[in-house]
C-alpha cells in the first residue's frame, strides 16, 4: 500500500527558497544564460550536411523525370512549360533528397533554409518556377546560434555567427552517357522511345525498302542521333523489348 500524506513545511525554509527563486529571476533578467533559441528571431547553426529546401536550376534540367520517379513520397510533379520541369509539394516531401542525389546534371541542389513554415496546404505546393530561388526569409538578426561546452572552464558557451545561406554549386559527377540499341533485330518499330524522348534524338520512321534500284516494300528505320541525346535514359525505361541501353562515352 502507498500512503500519501501532506508534506510538512518549515516556514523558515520556505521563505529561504522563495528568496532564492526571486534572486534567480532577477539574475536572468539582467544577464541571461538560457539554452533555448529565440526562433524565428535567431536560428541554430546546423551541420553542413543538413538537408534544406531544394533549389532548382532550369538551365541544367534535361527533363529526364528521374527525380519524380525516385521520390519515395511522390512529392514531385512534372509540369509542362517548354519542357517538363519538377515542382515539389512540401506537404509530402520528407527531405530525403533522393531527387537531388539522382539528378544527373546537378539541376537540383540543396539550400540551407530549413524553415518549413507555411500558412496553408496550398502554399506548400511549389511549382518549378517557385523553387528556382531559395525562399526568402526575413529575420531580425541574421545570426546563427550555436552552443558548446567550453572544456577549460566546463561552462556552456553561446556562440553567434553571421548566417550564411549560399550553397556551393553541386559537383556533377555523372559520367556522360548516350542511348544505344543493343539488339535492333528485336525492334518492334513501336515508336514509344521516339515519342518519350524529350530531345527528339530518336527517330523511328516508315521508309521504303529497296534492293538495288527497285522498291520492294515498306519498312521502318530506327535512328539514334547521339549528339542530341542527353543520356536521360527515358527511352531505355520505355522500350517494351528492353533493347535500349545507355553507353558511356568519352575517355
Amino acid at each position, binding site marked *: 500500500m502507498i500512503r500519501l500524506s501532506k508534506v510538512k513545511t518549515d516556514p523558515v525554509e520556505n521563505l529561504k527558497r522563495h528568496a532564492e527563486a526571486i534572486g534567480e529571476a532577477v539574475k536572468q533578467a539582467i544577464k541571461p544564460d538560457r539554452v533555448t533559441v529565440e526562433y524565428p528571431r535567431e536560428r541554430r547553426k546546423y551541420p553542413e550536411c543538413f538537408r534544406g529546401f531544394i533549389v532548382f536550376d532550369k538551365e541544367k534540367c534535361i527533363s529526364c523525370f528521374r527525380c519524380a520517379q525516385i521520390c519515395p513520397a511522390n512529392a514531385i510533379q512534372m509540369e509542362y512549360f517548354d519542357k517538363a520541369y519538377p515542382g515539389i509539394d512540401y506537404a509530402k516531401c520528407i527531405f530525403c533528397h533522393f531527387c537531388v542525389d539522382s539528378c544527373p546534371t546537378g539541376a537540383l541542389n540543396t539550400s540551407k533554409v530549413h524553415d518549413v513554415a507555411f500558412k496553408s496546404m496550398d502554399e506548400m505546393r511549389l511549382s518549378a518556377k517557385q523553387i528556382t530561388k531559395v525562399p526568402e526569409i526575413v529575420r531580425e538578426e541574421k545570426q546563427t546560434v550555436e552552443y558548446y561546452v567550453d572544456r577549460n572552464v566546463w561552462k556552456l558557451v553561446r556562440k553567434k555567427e553571421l548566417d550564411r545561406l549560399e550553397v556551393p554549386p553541386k559537383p556533377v559527377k555523372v559520367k556522360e552517357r548516350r542511348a544505344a540499341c543493343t539488339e535492333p533485330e528485336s525492334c518492334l518499330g513501336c515508336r*514509344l522511345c521516339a515519342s518519350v524522348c524529350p530531345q527528339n534524338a530518336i527517330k523511328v520512321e516508315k521508309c521504303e525498302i529497296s534492293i538495288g534500284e527497285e522498291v520492294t516494300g515498306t519498312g521502318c528505320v530506327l535512328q539514334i542521333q547521339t549528339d542530341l541525346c542527353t543520356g536521360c535514359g527515358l527511352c531505355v525505361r520505355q522500350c517494351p523489348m*528492353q533493347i535500349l541501353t545507355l553507353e558511356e562515352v568519352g575517355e
Partner: protein
Amino acid sequence: MMITREWQFALPEKKHKKKKYFGNLKAEVIDAGLCCHCAACASICPVNGITAGDAPIDFPNWIKECVDCGACVKVCPRWDYTPKNGLGEYIEVTAARSKRFVGQDGAMVTEFTASALEMGLIDRAIFVARDSNWRTRVVTIKTPEQLYDRKITGTKYSYADVLPALKDAVLKSEAVGFVGTPCMVTAVRKMQQAFKKFERVKLAIGLFCTENFYHHDLYNFLLEKANADLRNAVKTDIKKGKFIVELKDGSKVRIPVKDFEEIIPSGCKVCQDFAAVDSDVSIGSVGSANGFSTVMVRREVAKNILDYIREKEYAEFREPKLEVVQKLCDHKIKIHPWPPKKKEEKSEE
C-alpha cells in the same frame, strides 16, 4: 549529324490500306474466324492493348491506342495462313513414362522440362497450371521440385495465356522453355523469325492437339450436357473419342467428342496440325500404351535431353505405334478441311 546506329526492317504489307495494323488483323484473322487464340499478338503488343484470357482476342480501343507498329501481324500464325499438317520431320519416336513425375499420361512433358532444367539448358519454363475451377493459370517453373504439384502437370482443355508469360520470361532470362499447343509453337517460331530476342526460347515442347476450348464454354457444356461440375473434377482427358471427366468421388463421366462440335472454336476448325510439326519435341497420348506418352524428338536439343533421361534412367521406354499418330494426323486434315467448306462458313456467321 552524329548517328550511332541505323537499322532498317521490313513491315508486313497491309491488306486494308486505310486501317491500322490491328484493324487488318481483326478483319483478316479474328473476325474471319481464323484466330487460334495463341495470344502471340497480345504478348508482343508494345502498348499492351490486346486482351486474351477466356474471351476472343480483342483490342477494345484500337482505333485510338494502336501505335500501328505491325508486330502483331508479324507474329500471328494465322496471317497469310496455310495449314501445316502431317507427322513432320523427326529424329526419333518413342513411348515413355517418367519414373519421377505423375502427369496426364507418361508425364514426359514434365520429365523433359525437369531434365532440361537439371542440364542447365534452360533456367525457367512456362507451364499451365489450374485453379479449382479448372481455369488455366500460367506458372513459371524454375526448379524441378515445383513440378511435383499435380495442378501444374496434366492437361487442361482450355486456352491459356502462355505466350504473354513467355515474353516476360524472355526479357528476364537468356534460356527459356515452354509447353504449348501446336498453334502456339508455330507462333513462337514466327516470333523468333521476326524478333531476335526470342532466340532465347531454347526449348519448345509441342502437345498433340485436335482442339481446345474456351473455359466458360467447356464448363457450361459439361454442366448442362452431363451434369458434371468441373469444380469437382480431378482429371480431364480425351480417350478413344470420349471426353472423360474424373470426379472427386471416383466416378467418371464420358461424353462423345462428336457432341462438342458446337463449342469448338472456329480457329481450331481450320487447324490441321496435330503433331506440332514446328516443335523441338512433340508429346501426346495416342500411339502409346495407357500411362505412357508418345515422344517425337524433332531437333538436336531435344535429342540431347532424351539421351540424358536415358542415361539417368529417369524414364522407362516402350515401342510406339507411329501408324496411330499418322491416322490422327490424317483424321485432323479430314475434319478440318482447308479452305473451309462453304457450309461451315455459313454456320459460323
